[in-house]
Structure formats: C-alpha cells, structure tokens
C-alpha cells in the first residue's frame, strides 16, 4: 500500500468518526445507532496515551457496554431532551450545543460564532442540507459534519498540506474553543452515564485528532525539502511510474508520427504516457506542456436558458509532467497571469495547477533555436524530481563510453549495457519510492551555452516607446507574416483566451461555455463592439506580441523575469520562417540606435 492510499484511508476513517460524533448530537439515539456505537473502532496509538482524557473515555466506553448500566433507549431519549434541549427545566440550565452560546458574552444563540461558521461554509461552497432541520450552523453536529467534509475534501487533493491546515484551523478556532466547556456542562446536566461518557469521549476525540493533525502537518513540512540523489535502473523507474499511476496522471512529450506540420518526423506534444520509452528525450517537443493543465479548449460551465452549473474537475488524481527547465520556468509566467494578475486567481487554472508536480528532464543538448541562457531560464529549482533521461535513441556513442568509464559497466545485463537513470528527489512525497536504490552524488546539469543569443532590448526610458512603436522595421512583417497564430499556440507562456458557447447536439436549450486559446496575431483578437478592429495588420500585431514578451510583462510584474523563456518554439513553428530571435535582436539594435540618436 502506498503512502497515498494510507493517507486516504486515514482521512476516510477520520471522516467516518466525525460523522459518527455528529450523529450522536444530531438527535436521540435509536437501536441501530446504539449497536453501531458498541462496535465502533477508535484509533489509539500507544504514543498518545498521554492524552488521558481520550484513553479514560475509551475505557469508560468499554465498561459501559460490558456492564449494563440499565439505561433504556427511552431513558436516553429523555436525557437527550433534558440535557441538550433544556426540556422540562428552567431556561438556561442545560448544555445547549451551540458555539454562540459558549462564546458570546450573553450566552445566547446566533452570535459572532454563528456568523463566522456560516461564512466559512459559504466560502467553501456548501449549503446546509435539508435534513439539518432546525439545527443552526454553529450546532455541534453541523460543525462536526463540516470536519467530516474537510477530511474528504483534503483527501481529494494532491497537495494535502493546505487541507490539513484548514482542518486544524477550524478544529482549534471553533470546535476546541467551546466543546470542552460544553462537555463539562453535559457531565453536570446529564442524568445518564451514557451522555456523561459521550461528553468525555467527544472532548477526548477532538483533542486526540488535533494531535494527529499536528503531527501530520509537521511531517509534511519536514518532508517538503529533501535533496537526495539515486541511480535507478531504467526498468525499475518504469515500475515506479507504473505504481504512481494509481495516484497520478503522468504526462510527457510523445511523438505522433502521422501528425505535424512539416511532415518529417511527425509531431511531438504532451500526452499521457505509460512508460519511459514513450518520452522523446533527444528532441524538443513542438508544443509546450501548458496544454496539460491549461488545455486548448476547456469547459467553464454548463448552462440552460435560466441557470449555470460550474464545470469543476473532480478528478482526484494528481498530475506529473516530465518537463524541460525552460518549460517549468514558463509555468511561473502563466501562474503570474492566472493566479496573481489583478489580485485574483482563476479558479479553473488553480484547480488544475495545484495538482501539478514536475519531473524535470535535463536537456541532452541546446537545440537550434534555444536562447534559454539569455533569458535566464536554463536553470530551474521548481521540480519534485530531476533526472538525466538518456533514451535508447538519444545516446551518443560518447555518452555510452562516458558511462562505461564512470563504472556503470558492472551492471551488464545479458551482455547489454545496463540502462540506468540518475535522479535527484527534492519532494519528500516521492522519497520513499527510492530509498532502496543506490544513493549517489548527482546534481542536474543545465545548459550553459546556446548557439544563439537573444539580446533583450534595453528600454530604460518609457519615453522611447513612441519611437519604438513607429520603427519602420515592423512593417516588413506585413509582407512576411500570414497571421496564422502558430507562434502563440506553441508558446509556453501565451495565456490569452476567449470564450465560445456550444450547444448540446441533442438539446438546443442546453450547452456549455468553453474557453479556448486565442492569438494576438489574429486581427479578431482586438475586435471591439460594432466590428472595429484595433490592431488590423501583422506589423502592429507583431509589435504587440514581441513587446509583451520582452518588455510589457516585465514592466507590469517587475523583477528580472521576462515573459519569453527562450524555448524557440515560435521560430521553429513559423510556416514563413520568421525568426523571433532575429526580430528581438533587431529590435535591440534599433533601440540602441534610437538611444544613440538621442544622445
């Protein structure tokens, strides 16, 4: 059983226990539930025996069922009404199960605490169910139910730290803030041993669970940064990936022989893979990995004429992407747009992006149009695992010789060279998978030199911009560029989109709104109401695109990074052989010329 499934099991056990406790307070006990209580299994680790409240309560629970206390279900029902509803006694003398009662100065219902938890539920997008009856949002049963919901919610996500912290926050700020006092009141007001025991058991469980949460959070935080390297047999790594498929969709650059524009070697784009052999390592992919979590087209919501239903991806599996350093760096640019620009996050992007972990593939070489060194994106730190992934076709003779010299020859397997992969694990979640492998010293090797350099225009004075906009050299693109938008499609950082409504084929009253990538190299990109087009011709569209990549993005976001990561795909893809690299370099020269003219 993997760690992941252990974790899911634990979350599901906790969910059940919270639901169980919620039921205890929701209404009177019936026969079936009483039997369930007799057999319920509570977690109890030896280490936590210092939590005496809980262990005492468990002993008491066992005793209760071993030695019949002589309490009938009717007795319990009467005691429930008396203790929690204050039936038959002077008002104010009962254990009223509402947080507001215990936290407001006047000890009355529907105060601040009620407001707070109502907001919390609403922000989480959940509504009080019908069968909550007249229970208010801060009733103990509802708060316990919410914890159960959070347990399930957390187990749906790949990144669990946030969910666990959310649980801890609610438990500490709400339940544990009043339930212990409430349970002392139960002890005081209840007539039956059953409810007095329930009181102690509830407090004990909540304290115990808070302890469990603390240790899970601490473990996760401790595991977040590890740096250990291993040498793994290629076949073993395949087995490991196979195991990971239970919890992850695994994507890598894959070749489609019958596709592609140039009809040479097909098309390489990101797709789900089943084994390392499917990954193309000795060539650059035609498309960037962005389509894995930001697809060309995706549904935003379904609609009919009078309502909308958000399309949320409920796939609990995570996503692993085998990606190059520049492509991983490109994702940070997308994050800046979708998660930061304008101070809000795009929910659809965030849901998908939160699931993504990168397995970084070293580049075996710098390709023809790579300028990652100029853009500072040749290195990345943002990976769970980094690896040197030679594949059969990608090995040069020299590689093999080097490997033999490094002493890997002892691993001859039936006369063949043993294929090994060196890797570095930085994400504690994956560490356990490699602990039995040979630990080595390996640091990922990054490209330090490209054939071409990209000179980033140095526009330090914005008053230069009008002259830059009016440069004559833009106009040549009116002859060269055909506005196909291919450069935007393959770009790892182009993030623009538009929306389109689709009708269902079988019911024209229903449909969905999708968003699809859109291209600033197409005139319709800048169309406004009434059909006016702001940027009509390739010269101004090219200017708009290029300046965004090497000036405007940086000016808005700040720091040192530019939107372009120098992957060179736009140059490779262009059917008219327009070199983006030449364009930017020429712009650099023109800017220098303008500056010199100004003196």
């Amino acid at each position, binding site marked *: 059983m993997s760690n992941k499934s252990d974790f899911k099991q634990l979350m599901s056990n906790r969910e059940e226990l919270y639901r169980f406790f919620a039921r205890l307070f929701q209404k009177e006990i019936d026969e079936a539930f009483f039997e369930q209580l007799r057999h319920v299994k509570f977690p109890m680790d030896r280490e936590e025996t210092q939590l005496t409240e809980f262990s005492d309560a468990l002993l008491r629970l066992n005793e209760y069922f071993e030695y019949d206390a002589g309490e009938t279900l009717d007795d319990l029902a009467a005691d429930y009404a008396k203790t929690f509803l204050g039936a038959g006694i002077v008002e104010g003398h009962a254990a009223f199960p509402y947080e507001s009662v215990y936290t407001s100065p006047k000890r009355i219902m529907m105060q601040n605490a009620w407001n707070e938890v109502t907001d919390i539920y609403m922000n989480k997008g959940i509504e009080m169910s019908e069968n909550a009856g007249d229970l208010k949002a801060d009733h103990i049963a509802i708060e316990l139910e919410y914890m159960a919901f959070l347990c399930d919610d957390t187990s749906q996500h790949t990144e669990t730290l946030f969910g666990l912290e959310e649980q801890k926050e609610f438990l500490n700020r709400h339940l544990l803030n009043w339930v212990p006092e409430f349970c002392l009141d139960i002890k005081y007001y209840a007539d039956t041993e059953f409810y007095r025991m329930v009181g102690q058991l509830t407090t004990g469980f909540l304290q115990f669970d808070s302890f469990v949460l603390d240790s899970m959070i601490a473990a996760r935080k401790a595991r977040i940064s590890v740096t250990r390297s291993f040498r793994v047999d290629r076949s073993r790594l395949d087995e490991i990936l196979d195991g990971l498929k239970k919890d992850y969709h695994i994507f890598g650059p894959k070749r489609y022989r019958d596709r592609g524009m140039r009809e040479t070697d097909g098309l390489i784009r990101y797709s789900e893979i089943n084994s390392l052999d499917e990954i193309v390592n000795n060539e650059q992919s035609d498309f960037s990995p962005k389509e894995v979590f930001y697809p060309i087209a995706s549904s935003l*919501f379904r609609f009919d004429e009078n309502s909308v239903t958000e399309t949320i991806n409920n796939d609990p599996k995570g996503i692993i992407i085998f990606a190059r350093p520049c492509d991983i760096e490109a994702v940070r640019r997308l994050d800046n*747009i979708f998660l930061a620009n304008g101070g809000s996050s795009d*929910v659809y992007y965030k849901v998908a992006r939160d699931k993504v972990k990168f397995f970084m593939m070293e580049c075996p070489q710098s390709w023809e149009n790579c300028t990652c060194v100029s853009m500072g994106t040749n290195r990345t730190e943002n990976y769970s695992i980094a690896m040197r992934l030679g594949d059969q076709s990608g090995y040069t003779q020299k590689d093999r010789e080097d490997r033999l010299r490094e002493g890997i020859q002892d691993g001859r397997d039936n006369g063949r060279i043993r294929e090994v992969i060196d890797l570095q694990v930085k994400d504690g979640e994956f560490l356990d998978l490699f602990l039995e492998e040979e630990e080595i010293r390996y640091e990922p090797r990054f490209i330090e030199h490209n054939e071409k350099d990209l000179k980033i225009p140095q526009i330090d004075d914005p008053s230069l911009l009008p002259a830059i906009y009016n440069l004559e050299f833009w106009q040549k693109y009116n002859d060269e560029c055909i506005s196909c938008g291919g450069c935007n499609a393959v770009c790892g950082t182009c993030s623009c989109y538009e929306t389109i409504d689709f009708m269902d084929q079988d019911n024209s009253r229903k*449909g969905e709104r999708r968003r699809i990538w859109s291209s600033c190299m197409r005139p319709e990109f800048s169309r406004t*109401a009434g059909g*006016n087009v*702001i940027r009509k011709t390739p010269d*101004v569209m090219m200017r708009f695109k290029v300046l965004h990549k090497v000036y405007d993005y940086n000016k808005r976001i700040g720091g040192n990074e530019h939107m372009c990561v120098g992957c060179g795909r736009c140059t490779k893809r262009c059917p008219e052989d327009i070199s983006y690299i030449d364009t930017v370099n020429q712009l650099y020269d023109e800017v220098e010329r303008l500056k010199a003219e100004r003196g």
Partner: protein
Amino acid sequence: MEKNKILPQPHKILSMLRHTDTECTFRVACDNEPNFGQFFMLSLPKVGEAPISASGKGPGYVEFTIRNVGLLTQAIFDLVPGNSIFLRGPYGNAFPVDKFENKDLLVICGGTGMAPVLTMLNHFYDHPEVCKSVHIISGFKNIQAVLFREEIEKFSRRFDMIATLDNEVAPGFETGMVTKHICKIPIKSFVDYNIVIVGPPIMMKFAAMECMKNGADESKIWVSFERKMSCGVGKCGHCRVGDHYVCLDGPVFNYTEAKTMMD
C-alpha cells in the same frame, strides 16, 4: 477556496425602453451597484459574452443602453421583460467623481461614448449643486446615429449642451466634429475644472489635443477606453495595452497616462 469570478448568474429583465430600431435600454434586476463608468460582462447562453457599460442604476436594478451592432446584442434585442440575461460584475475603475465636486466639468462624447457617462450625468442632473457648471459636447455621425435623444433634451434644460452631427444639418443639432465646438467652451476662464472624453480612440486623441490647444491641462482630462475583454479580471489578455489592462487599471485613465498607451 477562492470565488469563481468568471461565473455569470441569470438576472431578470425588468423593463425595456426602446429608443430607436437599433438602441434600447434594458433595466435588469441586480443588487451589485456599479460605480460611475464601470462595466459588466453580459451574456446569453449559446450566443456569447461581451462587456457593456452600465448606463444607469437604482435600488435593485442596473440599466444598460445597448446598440444592436452584433450577434450578442441582436440576441439581447430579441428578449422581453421577464427573460433572463446572464451577468457578472461590475468591473473596472470609475470616474473620480469626488474630484469633480465644486468645479467646472466638460464632458465630450462621440457616438456610444455617451453610455459610460450617462449614469454620472444623470447623477449631476439630479444633484445640480455638486458641480460648479456642466458642459456637454455630444457628437454623432449623422441623424440616424443619434442616441439618447431624450437625455440630450433633458440635459440641455439644465446643462450647457451642444449636440452635433459630423456632416449633416438637422434642426436642434450643430454641424461638425466635436473638436470644432471645443473652442466654444470657456476653458480658459475655468478656475478649476475636469474634462471627460469618451469615444473612439481617434476622437479621444484629437478632442484631448483640441482641449489642450484651448488652454486645458492634460492632467485635468479623463478618458475611458473601450475593449472587448473575455474575462474582465485581468486574465484573458484581450484588453491589454502595453503594461496596462483596461479591465483592471481602467477603463478610466487620466490623460497623462492614457497618452502613453499605444496599441
């Protein structure tokens, strides 16, 4: 979990006021009160979504004056009160109306450019004490293109109102581009003032230049940009101009900033 900012909700059309064959004001039930100059994203299922300025507001409703120029607006025109329209917003910044208090105000608008300033002008109409004086120059291509006739008549009762047609002669209208009439406004005699210009990009540029020629300071000029965004929250990229996003940083810009924004 963060709120989904791009999910619209259906809102009932309360009433429709048809001005001409191609323009109509829709009053829609809505509690999200827009500020002067803000816009909403309006959409209809199966047709699409577009940004539209609020042209009026009141308790529990928002008004949109829509000109029938495309697929979406055509489909909206086919609706009747009681139907639903999908809405999200309001988005963008607003005219700095507090800066306009006790000062002279000149509003220059071309074509549909009047819609984004309508709520503000109605506010000043109802509260004539707010501004020291209000001058309006509203230009249209020709008599068929004239919008907001009732408003123009109403405003001319309380404000200094010039309505003009680019190259047609018609009763009640001057002739010539808005730029031709700017010299009639005593900008030089204003002690403190603001100028709001809304219309097509070219018109805004030339109107601003003409105002400056007549003694206006560029920092006193405010313009509002029109772009067709797909999100309204800084993600879709359609309204980006240089390092500005019209939906986030605008649509209202001071001219000192606007003059640097090139497409």
